[in-house]
């Protein structure tokens, strides 16, 4: 990555794509309270995405606002990590994604809150409180499912195994960024290890580390997410909504 624009855009895209995926759960959650909780988390991610996209547009200085950046870029221009674009899968996969994402976003936003860029610091200070809730929620479900029934344990372990390799990309070094993601890994490990242990789950030991999202090379899934998200906006160029 290069400079605060790319960094800000990467964070924005993580949040935006996470919001889009979480919102897919609306009307489908395992219980009504969970429908509300997932919508809350989606709204937090969407709120952070909007702040970050708006700021990225200002940094770029080309007159793009949050909607121009969200709706008028193609998949190769998106900078989100692959983890957030993975399909929701079953509830266990969604909770694995949520838990790992929050365990990365919490130290990220906490570090951002103390960075030299005032705008990013303000966004970090707001978003870290939300991330703390996302982390609690994700961790609670990882434990419930991991240490619930035989079926839920099997599904949760499979979900952790499936999502884990995608966590490595989150910590790719970028020493020039306002916060170097590589510095966040210890905090992530410190949170994730004990939760998995308490959940009676095994931490995967896979060397496979798929990546490419930060450079715009995504999984096959992102283009479908964007096709759906952008279809109406693009069908009416220049319209106000």
């Amino acid at each position, binding site marked *: 990555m290069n400079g605060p624009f790319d960094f800000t855009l990467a964070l924005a895209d993580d949040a935006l794509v996470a919001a889009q995926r979480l919102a897919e759960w609306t009307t489908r*959650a395992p219980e009504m309270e969970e429908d509300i909780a997932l919508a809350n988390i989606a709204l937090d991610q969407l709120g952070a995405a909007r702040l970050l996209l708006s700021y990225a547009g200002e940094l770029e200085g080309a007159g793009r606002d949050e909607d121009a950046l969200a709706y008028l870029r193609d998949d190769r221009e998106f900078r989100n990590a692959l983890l957030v674009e993975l399909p929701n899968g079953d509830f266990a996969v969604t909770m694995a994604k949520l838990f790992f994402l929050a365990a990365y976003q919490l130290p990220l936003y906490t570090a951002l809150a103390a960075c030299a860029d005032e705008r990013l610091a303000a966004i970090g200070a707001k978003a870290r409180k939300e991330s703390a809730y996302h982390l609690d929620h994700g961790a609670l479900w990882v434990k419930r499912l991991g240490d619930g029934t035989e079926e839920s344990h099997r599904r949760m372990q499979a979900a952790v195994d499936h999502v884990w390799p995608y966590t490595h990309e989150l910590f790719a070094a970028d020493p020039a960024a306002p916060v170097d993601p590589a510095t966040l890994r210890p905090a992530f490990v410190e949170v994730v290890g004990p939760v998995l242990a308490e959940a009676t789950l095994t931490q995967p030991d896979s060397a496979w580390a798929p990546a490419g999202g930060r450079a715009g090379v995504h999984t096959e899934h992102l283009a479908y997410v964007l096709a759906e998200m952008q279809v109406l906006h693009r069908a009416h160029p220049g319209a106000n909504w």
Partner: protein
Amino acid sequence: MYGNDFSAPDGAPDEAPGGLLGEVEAAEAELRAAAARGRRGGPAPDEDLAAYFAEVVDAEQKIEPRDWMPDAYRRTLIRQIAQHAHSEIIGMQPEGNWISRAPSLKRKAILLAKVQDEAGHGLYLYAAAETLGISRDELVQLLLDGRQKYSSIFNYPTLSWADVGAIGWLVDGAAIVNQVPLCRCSYGPYARAMIRVCKEESFHQRQGYEILHTLAHGTPEQQAMAQEAVDRWWYPSLAMFGPPDGDSTHSAQSMAWKIKRFSNDDLRQRFVDMCVQQAEILGLRIPDADLRWNEERQAYDYTQPDYDELMQVISGNGPCNRERMAHRRAAHADGSWVREAAAAYAAKRAGQKETVAA
């Protein structure tokens, strides 16, 4: 609260339609006043319970969960409150259909928050029904088994973005007109739930109006989208008030019990009168060639909705009945392993605590 970051356009209802939010506030004040003046004491040992119940209702006092009430009153309330709760839950589907495609991030946030509010309304309404001695799980099962209904309006599809606006303006508008009198319902927990629901619904109604206002003042394609949505949603919205008074099966008894305060036709008229002026400000046409002011009645004459169609939709043959139910059943079935896991985990935790305590 999320998603409130828009300013109302000129002419937007600055509160609920037709000053209805004022009525909600009045109902709230009345509820407080009734609580303050206190109710007569409980029935004497040899007092006729039915007469006691009637006296409390006639005095505009609230019936509370522990009070004696006629079985039919209890059954009517369970049916009505559960139907209302189910409507909130099923009603998430047609609007939820547009969250992923909302045309701006601001609209996406507002819509997601709105659909989330509906889940919240469903939860308080189920809680209000539970005060009558039935559990939420039982009520949900009655819905899934097709033994309890939800509002027929949600069996119509949302085919364009403008439908999200039309649902807000017309469907939420009709719901508010229906529900505001329920804020004065004789059953305390329902009245209190409705006060809260109506306040949020009036906000949703305004958001829908604002979507349509933006579209109606947008490109020709957006204007056409808005008009087409109003054309499709107008008559189903009128049908939300139920069959004409002569054919309404539950009305008279509910009026006597002060569950219901106005007839279906009175509420429908009120809704039509409220919409006409708002449609003019929106610049959208209500699809009724016979809509005109009647000086003598001081109300608009209008074309009745197709009640045969309403009966068809109620009986399961609307465009989306099967899909809405299949969706809810699938979500419930797909979530069963998660609910079982949560219960098993909670049981293990409780067991550990007992072991520690021992």
